[in-house]
């Protein structure tokens, strides 16, 4: 699998796809969706779709694709090679969500959670297949969150396509197994030789599986922590594992929006007058005004202050 396009800039999301088999543009097709790397604190999350004509479903079984988790890495590699060789009727596409994308989405001001991110990646891939001319009739999805809600969401989004969302779909439907193999192989490749864009000097490549429970991953996270910057983009900052480490070991960073206290308390801290204070009995504010010098608004509006010391 050639991940060159993603490796060129692994800070952003990237889509990789096979050529669209001609039969898929003329015959009714089924499509499977699965993901790899949802849980790890390191590396990207990969969404994969695989599609083939409904009539060729049996051929897929002959390839002996199975749930990627039951296979060894070598078996997965082998199966992916076979899938890629069956390009006359099998197509695939991948959405690689970089760890940086996951971090920035989940930690931005208006939070974009992992489920929404996953759903949108899946929807994007299905739309990509439709846009490429694949005659989609059936879509099989391994669920993220409650299956019924997800199924309803996808059915509404793609009228005319029969959507089936099932937990463990990757062991029930060969087309989902195939998608899961594509996703897993891409994830393995990208993590194995992660190309650190940061200037880190000698970086220890022994980070294990990337799951928070892996002792190797834990040790690596402890070792690579930078007090100011935290971690390279390889690490998902939005994971609680990361945040706990940053809270205890790194320099404290205050953000404008990490203060959840509201109303008068926050206003008092920011030296603002709360709206509420105007409705209080007795005018505390006017007393304050007479005591202290009121700086002209030219300066207060521009956040300019005189200094007593440097």
């Amino acid at each position, binding site marked *: 699998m050639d991940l060159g396009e993603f490796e060129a800039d692994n800070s952003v999301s990237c889509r990789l796809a096979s050529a669209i088999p001609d039969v898929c543009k003329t015959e009714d097709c089924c499509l499977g969706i699965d993901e790899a790397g949802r849980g790890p604190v390191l590396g990207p999350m990969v969404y994969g779709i695989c599609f083939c004509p409904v009539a060729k479903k049996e051929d897929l079984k002959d390839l002996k694709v199975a749930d990627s988790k039951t296979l060894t890495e070598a078996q997965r590699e082998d199966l992916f090679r076979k899938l890629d060789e069956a390009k006359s009727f099998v197509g695939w596409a991948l959405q690689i969500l970089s760890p940086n994308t996951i971090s920035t989405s989940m930690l931005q001001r208006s939070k974009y959670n992992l489920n929404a991110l996953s759903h949108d990646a899946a929807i994007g891939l299905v739309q990509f297949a439709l846009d490429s001319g694949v005659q989609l009739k059936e879509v099989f999805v391994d669920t993220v969150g409650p299956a019924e809600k997800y199924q309803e969401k996808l059915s509404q989004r793609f009228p005319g396509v029969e959507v089936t969302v099932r937990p463990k779909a990757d062991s029930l439907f060969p087309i989902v197994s195939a998608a899961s193999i594509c996703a897993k192989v891409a994830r393995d490749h990208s993590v194995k030789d992660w190309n650190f864009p940061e200037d880190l*000097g000698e970086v220890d490549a022994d980070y294990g599986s990337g799951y928070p429970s892996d002792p190797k991953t834990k040790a690596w996270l402890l070792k690579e922590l930078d007090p100011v910057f935290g971690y390279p983009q390889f690490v998902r900052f939005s994971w609680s594992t990361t945040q706990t480490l940053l809270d205890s070991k790194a320099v404290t960073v205050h953000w404008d929006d990490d203060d959840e206290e509201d109303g008068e308390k926050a206003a008092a801290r920011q030296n603002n007058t709360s709206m509420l204070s105007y409705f209080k009995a007795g005018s505390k504010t006017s007393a304050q005004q007479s005591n202290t010098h009121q*700086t002209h608004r030219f300066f207060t509006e521009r956040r300019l202050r005189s200094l007593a010391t440097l």
Partner: protein
Amino acid sequence: MTTKKKRTPHSQNDRWVVVAADSAVETPKKDDSDPTFIRLRNPSTDAASLYLLGSGDVQLYEVKAFNEDFHSWFIGQTVQRDGRLLYVTPMDPLYLLLPYLIKAGKEGKFQPVDQVVMDEDFPACTRLLSCTRSQASLYHVAEEKEVGSLKFQRYSQERTMEWLKKKAERTVKTLRKSNISVGEGVKSTTYVRVKQESETQEEDYLRYAHGLISEYISEDLSKALLKHLQLPEHSSPKEVEPPSKKRKLTDKPLEAGEDYTKFNISDFSRKPPKKMSSAQKALAKVDKTGMKSMSAFFSPKGKAENK
């Protein structure tokens, strides 16, 4: 290229990010002193403020800091916690000399200025007199007498007012040129505009300029200048408040289009029963039989401890 970054010791005051006029930082000519930060009495607050004297004490600069929460600097390969941005801008030294002249002026005598400008708390204030503009511009705020080669000054309120008025007018010009919005904004809701729009605008500009200049003069001077500029005294927030909302209590119902009578009963001032939050309501419903009251736990020792 180092793998582990060393943390520099936490020292806040060894570095600042400054925007300054070239003249403020230019290298001193021979025999001149370096530009220096000095603390002087702020004429408006009467407390210490930071200023900068350019090389050779030729020009005075004031120091203002842009300071907002949640800001830090990345400087080269380091991080600076203090996200302030200092501005060093030229300033008329006369503003700082004025309080000393006023103080001496109360004696009513003509005095040499170097005897007047003295301050135990801020001995550096004498250096203000070396600024090029200082000696030459004293006539703006003081009457002068020359005896031989000696000059004597006496503070003059009239001259000062004229000088400040010119300052205000120049400020208005600059405000207009720099498109600074001077409108009263929220405050204008209590401000009745009887004059024509353009005139009102003019007054807004002048009031704004007065406010700006008041940052550099004492409160007394600020009030005097307000009068001199013929601006109506700014009503204090208390006066701005609408007259008490409580109506005169009468027994007769009001004859109004709308029914206000319910507000017109004598027990209007009685407070409505306190509302309880849903949590409080839920708590109130709890069966409290056999439960100790909270205060029981804080009653004098003995009972509980002896058990």
